[in-house]
């Protein structure tokens, strides 16, 4: 079983559209994250949720709206997509918000045309 799974793995869409990426973890972890990896492979945290509550929001445009229906799921919705949103988005989870290894999903490659 995949510990952290993301869907879809690939997403190609037009500018201005709205899209969502879903993430689920079956590790029983309390904390989940979204990271963005740009074309130069630079990884930057976007959001973190602990037990469904937002704890980190790193100056991400408000077109990006994370939602955590329960602690095993963290979805990312993006409105009015722009070219610069093209990237690989990685979901991750950890045992707690204060420590522990991060386990990453396989990434969702978003291409905005």
């Amino acid at each position, binding site marked *: 079983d995949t510990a952290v799974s993301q869907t879809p793995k690939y997403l190609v869409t037009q500018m201005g559209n709205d899209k969502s990426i879903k993430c689920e973890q079956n590790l029983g972890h309390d904390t989940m994250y979204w990271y963005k990896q740009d074309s130069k492979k630079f990884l930057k945290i976007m959001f973190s949720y602990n037990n469904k509550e937002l704890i980190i929001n790193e100056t991400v445009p408000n077109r990006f709206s994370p939602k955590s229906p329960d602690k095993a799921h963290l979805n990312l919705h993006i409105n009015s997509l722009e070219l610069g949103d093209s990237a690989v988005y990685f979901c991750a989870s950890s045992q*707690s918000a204060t420590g522990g290894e991060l386990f990453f999903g396989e990434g969702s490659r978003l291409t905005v045309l």
Partner: protein
Amino acid sequence: AQSVSQHNHHVILSEAASLELGCNYSYGGTVNLFWYVQYPGQHLQLLLKYFSGDPLVKGIKGFEAEFIKSKFSFNLRKPSVQWSDTAEYFCAVKGSNAGNMLTFGGGTRLMVKP
């Protein structure tokens, strides 16, 4: 604020060569340090981590890293690389006051020629 710098962006080695990838961090307090590897088309996997204790940390696949506090460094080493080590390597730091938020370096792309 914490930051991480990886000086080598691209490294090309022949099989059996020794590897050292540099990582320097900036943070004034206690840190946890990590090296992650990303094989082509795959997700990030943890190679090794340092929390406390022996500054020489051994990880999976023959990798090790040494934490030198005075130099704010956590360089990754492997005595003899293999073609299968071709990947992107990321150093990451977590400061004691940063919750569990990892800050990643820009990555080093390693290519090992057979």
